[in-house]
């Protein structure tokens, strides 16, 4: 009996030391290769590479987890990828040069930033019809949506603003000036804050969504690293509002922020030119795309450590996780 308990204990300890296996699949868009790389979440190995449209960038999963939407920027279209069939099954209109997009929390519509046209295009994913176009600032990219789906935020990179758009009237109701070249906008899960990164400004602006005022601008400093290399792009906040992660571009690091104190806690070294990141379903992992080292990094969120880097295609851009 005792030996059995010891064995069981040993087995438990062994499992505790190893990183827990997760059953999920990671999809990465490779901007240069015109493909997506499929990575198995359990083994953290590449299982296949699938050709998609030209210059694939933004990628997001449907609310029912059956489809992936992929921005094929040079094809001026959104591709619909069926996860069960593992193939492209159709397209959605997107307006010209779609880069980033966001799905309403309800699962429909899809809001797309048209980089070249200073527009946000709204598309009904069920009917496949364009609903409307909303004029915004110069070079729209970042897209965020409030948890109740009522406010859409788009950032214009050259106008340096976060535009607050009412999703019913499709009118801009407010504009917040941020630091140079804002590329990403993310609401916290409670809808109270909006986090906007400024790539050239080198900061993250935390905006109170009720007052629409910046409550804090977070700066970054890494020993031995040129300030110019710190170029924040993607940002993700945990659902419990405790931690935020910021991809810092050519700084090759992800900043870990105490999202309550709004202070930087740590920097995690990943691959080169890290731009985008996505949590898995239970937020135990954060996957990052490292555009210049052609790999993705896997961050163990509980332990705040990078556990693996996986080689994918050329110039990985976006990442989505399917359960």
């Amino acid at each position: 009996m005792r030996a059995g308990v010891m064995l069981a204990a040993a087995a438990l300890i062994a499992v505790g030391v190893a990183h827990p296996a997760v059953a999920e699949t990671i999809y990465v868009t490779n901007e240069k290769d015109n493909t997506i790389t499929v990575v198995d979440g359990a083994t953290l190995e590449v299982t296949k590479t699938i050709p998609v449209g030209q210059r694939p960038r933004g990628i997001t999963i449907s609310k029912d987890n059956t489809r992936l939407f992929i921005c094929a920027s040079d094809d001026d279209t959104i591709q619909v990828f069926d996860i069960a069939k593992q193939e492209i099954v159709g397209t959605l209109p997107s307006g010209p040069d779609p880069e980033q997009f966001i799905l309403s929390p309800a699962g429909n519509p899809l809001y797309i930033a048209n980089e070249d046209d200073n527009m946000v295009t709204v598309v009904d994913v069920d009917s496949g019809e364009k609903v409307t176009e909303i004029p915004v600032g110069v070079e729209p990219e970042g897209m965020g949506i409030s948890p109740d789906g009522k406010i859409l935020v788009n950032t214009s990179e050259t106008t340096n603003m976060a535009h607050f758009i009412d999703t019913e009237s499709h009118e801009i109701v407010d504009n917040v000036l941020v630091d140079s070249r804002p590329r990403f906008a993310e609401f916290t899960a409670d809808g109270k804050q909006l986090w906007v990164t400024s790539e050239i400004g080198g900061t993250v602006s935390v905006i109170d969504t009720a007052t629409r005022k910046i409550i804090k601008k977070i700066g970054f400093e890494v020993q031995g690293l040129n300030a110019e290399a710190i170029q924040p792009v993607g940002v993700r906040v945990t659902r419990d509002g405790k931690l935020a992660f910021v991809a810092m571009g050519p700084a090759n690091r992800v900043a870990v922020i105490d999202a309550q104190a709004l202070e930087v806690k740590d920097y995690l070294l990943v691959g080169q030119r890290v731009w985008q990141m996505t949590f898995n379903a239970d937020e135990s992992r954060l996957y990052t795309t490292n555009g210049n080292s052609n790999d993705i990094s896997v961050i163990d969120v509980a332990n705040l450590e990078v556990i693996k880097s996986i080689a994918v295609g050329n110039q990985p851009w976006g990442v989505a996780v399917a359960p």
Partner: protein
Amino acid sequence: MRKPQIRRVGLLVMTLFATALPAAAQNAPADAVTIPIAYITERVKELPPFSLVDQPTGDNGLMGARLGIDDNNTTGKFTKQNFTLDEAVVPDGGDVVGAFRGLLAKGHKFIVADLPAAQLLAIADVPEAKDTLIFNVQAKDDALRGEQCRANVLHTMPNYAMLADGLAQYLMWKRWANWFLVVGTGEEDKKFAAALRRAAERFSATIVEEREFDAAPGARRTDTGYAQIQKQMPTFTQGVGDYDVLVVSDERDAFGEYLQYRTWDARPVVGTQGLVPLAWHRSQEQWGATQMQNRFTKFAGRWMTERDYAAWLAVRSISEATTRTNKTDYASVNAYIRGPEFGVAGFKGQKLTFRDWDGQLRQPVLLAGARTLVSVSPQEGFLHQFSELDTLGFDRPETTCKLRAPAQ
């Protein structure tokens, strides 16, 4: 959308003051503050482009300023600021200083000057120009950043020293340290050559030999094409000794292009032709530049040039200041642009700022071949205490500029 205008190079007849075009195709908010910006240039008669592959650019620089206004007004829709461009396009040989005085008389404080060095100094020294902000978007002369600097001038176009340093850093990274320098006989050729010699010393390259090539730009299109050149160039480049790369300074574009593939020894050609250091190139697509290129070609009907880019940066700098300070007066805008908070995004991967010792905009230098970007300087490994961009051009300790206002 504005219909693109492609002006023929030969067109000379223009009114002294081209009517100010409506600033933007967009509607300014009713309660918007107007911020007037002026643009001045002399429409000199240009030779036909060297190659059929090149584009004619009769409105060089001007289109960059106009697109800058347009982009400013997109932001301005939200900040309630409306920018206008007052264009003084002086005909060849016309009175530039007179036209400039006319702009000042209208109350202009922000002037985009698309002029060569002599005329730039002439307008900067006009006494009434003391409290104005003049952006140099054309002249690359090193003297303008040195002994001939002016307190009321900021430079968005890089100077020869910056470009030469950008090129030299790449050559040293490649370990092409032995240079054969070929210089044309024009004034500008000599200025760039001086910058190249300085760069060689700075980055420890060796000029193994220097030769002058005497060729005034002649008729560009001739039917016999290459027959004579094929014999001339090898002979001219014969017997140089051991060198890695031919560095040519032919700013007038008279002969430099002929050197490539015809040198006696098989060597790359760099400098004003071949691998060229530039502020901007049509192939630049990094750091979101594709969007800039798309916007510009749609707007102007041609590729964006260095002068367009410099003019665009000047106009955008003013908008950066008025947007961030929410003030539009000369004193506030001028102070902010020269201050520590200022930075303008120029699609070069980092924010661009003005050097306080000589008013030069720090910026990466593009190194371009015919169809692609080869590299961008500063090269990795060239370090600097304050900003790696200051490894290009005149750094603070070596400046000969003593910023002073024009004589009263």
